[in-house]
């Protein structure tokens, strides 16, 4: 299956280049084809234990595939959404140029995020994640408004500084390995994991803290999350969905790779404590911020910070079931947050604003995407039968089995607070009577289709995850050191 890795490595990139020159109709079709192809290939990789290509420079194991599926799924569904969201250019030259840039950027962004779980080694992982930053910063700025420029600048600066720290972490980890391998070696995962037990503990500890701080900046962990609400709210909606559902997950993946090495080197107590501190801060602060939002997309952005906090807290529990829950949460969050942002995009198209005080009667105005947005928000609030209910249930079960079960209580309180904020604003905007003059109807069938796919996936993950997927999650949890 090594060829599949090569196709994933080339297809979105090639489509991106073509999109820069091609008319928008071709861009839409190619983007959709590339998204679906990437997703299908990611699914085909599921049964294999490990797959390598390019003499080991590309390598996926169960952990990588979980994240690759999250990225590829959102890439495919966002491609569907973008067809309905991006307005036809008509005869206007600047609009056509905007569309070409948008589709080229979207594919390049998806490509860079897919490369992160594909590459073998901490150094190339850093390179891939840095590329995601520069590409997505340009996409955040693409609308060329004052707010978009401000958001893009803050994002680029804060995320780059964070990644500077992550690079420092990589170099310190390289140094830890040089005590075993000597001066010059490749930072391949199997190689590092095989001998991590011989690394100097204090050096590994230093590297792990730097990695959590550095990649945590991209993941949106409090207190280094400040770019996130701005970028998510100012980016074009398809990009917001990918930022939230897959980019944050990819950054979390980088932290997990450091976690893997650290656990082998010094045991799991220290890395768990570090993740716990960041996780609790993120969950609690995001839950409080959720209650005071006025902008629909900022609301979902803070919900992302909350869910990243849940992921970090989940990893701090010692029970293997919690780790399985965390990995399922990555997939479920991608589906739920993607759908929620697509719904926000539909509302934005209909009402022409993200200001929640000016949006009323969403369900009346949008007969399909309105109710589906409410369902996606219920999914984000961890209501059954959706995937996040199952994943948070697993995480809390793991938490209750942990000696520090008070953390599970904090988790439940935080998630409930967040639910209050999310459901209050959603009911205010969606479940109120429509104002006069708003025409009932959808703006695009493609937007509805993308939301149906997202909700279907979210429900599938909640009701009955496919057997092979469950097996994949358990294998990935095993790779992270969680053995039942």
């Amino acid at each position, binding site marked *: 299956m090594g060829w599949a890795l090569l196709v994933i490595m080339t297809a979105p990139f090639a489509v991106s280049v073509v999109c820069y020159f091609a008319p928008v109709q071709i861009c839409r079709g190619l983007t959709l084809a590339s998204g679906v192809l990437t997703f299908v290939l990611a699914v085909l990789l599921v049964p294999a234990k490990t797959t390598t290509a390019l003499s080991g420079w590309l390598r996926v194991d169960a952990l990588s595939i979980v994240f690759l599926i999250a990225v590829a799924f959102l890439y495919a569904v966002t491609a569907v959404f973008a067809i309905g969201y991006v307005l036809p250019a008509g005869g206007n030259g600047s609009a056509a140029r905007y569309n070409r840039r948008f589709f080229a950027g979207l594919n390049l962004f998806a490509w860079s995020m897919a490369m992160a779980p594909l590459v073998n080694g901490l*150094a*190339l992982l*850093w*390179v891939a994640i*840095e*590329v995601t*930053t*520069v590409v997505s*910063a*340009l996409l955040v*700025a693409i609308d*060329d408004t*004052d*707010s978009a*420029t*401000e*958001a*893009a*600048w*803050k994002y*680029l*600066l804060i995320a*780059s*500084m964070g990644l*500077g*720290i992550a*690079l*420092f972490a990589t*170099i*310190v980890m*390289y*140094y830890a390995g*040089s005590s075993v391998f*000597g*001066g*010059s*070696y*490749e*930072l391949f995962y199997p190689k590092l994991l095989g001998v991590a037990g011989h690394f*100097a503990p*204090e*050096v590994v500890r*230093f590297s792990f803290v730097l990695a959590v701080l550095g990649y945590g900046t991209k993941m949106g962990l409090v207190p280094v999350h400040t770019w996130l*609400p*701005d970028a998510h*709210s*100012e980016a074009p909606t398809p990009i917001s969905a990918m930022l939230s559902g897959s980019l944050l997950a990819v950054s979390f993946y980088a932290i997990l790779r450091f976690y893997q090495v650290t656990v082998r080197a010094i045991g799991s107590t220290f890395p768990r404590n570090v993740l716990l501190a960041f996780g609790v801060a993120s969950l609690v602060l995001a839950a409080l*911020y959720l209650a*005071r*939002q*006025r902008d629909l997309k*900022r609301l979902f952005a803070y919900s992302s910070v909350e869910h990243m906090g849940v992921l970090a807290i989940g990893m701090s529990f010692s029970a293997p079931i919690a780790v399985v829950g965390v990995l399922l949460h990555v997939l479920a969050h991608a589906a739920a947050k993607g759908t929620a942002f697509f719904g926000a995009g539909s509302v934005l198209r209909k009402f022409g604003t993200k200001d929640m005080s000016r949006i009323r009667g969403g369900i009346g105005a949008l007969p399909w995407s309105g109710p589906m947005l409410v369902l996606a928000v219920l999914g984000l609030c961890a209501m059954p039968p959706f995937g996040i209910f199952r994943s948070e249930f697993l995480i809390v079960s793991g938490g209750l089995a942990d000696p520090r079960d008070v953390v599970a209580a904090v988790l439940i309180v935080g998630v409930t607070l967040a639910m209050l904020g999310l459901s209050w604003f959603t009911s205010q905007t969606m479940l109120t009577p429509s104002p006069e003059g708003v025409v009932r109807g959808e703006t695009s069938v493609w937007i509805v289709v993308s939301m149906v796919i997202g909700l279907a996936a979210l429900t599938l993950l909640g009701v009955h995850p496919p057997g092979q997927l469950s097996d994949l999650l358990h294998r990935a949890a095993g790779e992270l050191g969680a053995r039942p």
Partner: protein
Amino acid sequence: MVVVPPVPSSFSGGTEAIALVVLLTEFAMLRAPTARSQIRLYAFQSLAVSALAVFVAATQHIDELYVLAALSFVLKVVVVPGIVLRLLRGTRADLAGSNRFGVATMVLVAIGISVFGFFVVGNLSVHSHSLPAPAFGLATAVILVAFLLVILRSDVVSQAVGFFSLENGVSMASLVIAAGIPLIVEVAFLFDLMVAVVVFGVLMRVHHGRGRTLSTEALDRLRG
């Protein structure tokens, strides 16, 4: 346990001297009055890092580092400052007044934070065969002062240069403790920096085009 030789070798003396020059340049950036001087200081700092790479290559017999030094020189001393200066052509290049505190206060804070970084790393008992521990402490201090530069100066040029010089600090740290890191990885890092520089430059230009200023004071619309 750190093994400290009684008399530093000429090798460790040389590397520490260059590392100190890099740190002092970082201090100078804190108070640079114009965009042009800020970028010149960055070019000079990059030159010092390239010189460190040559020095390590020569004394440790790691030939790959010559290639890295050459690339680093071309990109960070010539191309990056060139691109940024070109992008800023026609802008009002005066950065005076973008300090959040007086120069003396900023330098004192920077000294405090450098000392902190230096001793924290000193306590890690990191020691490398290739280079001595003090240079690693100095590299950490450069990284911390780069953060100060971004935090304490409210203009887009200082903030971007703050990021570039953070990368110089990390490069220096890698020369100190991981000189053997494969060339392909180092080249990927440098390439990435190049892409980031272009994006920073584009956004700087957009920012200036919209607000007719390099100050970040107006970037306060998005809150909460």
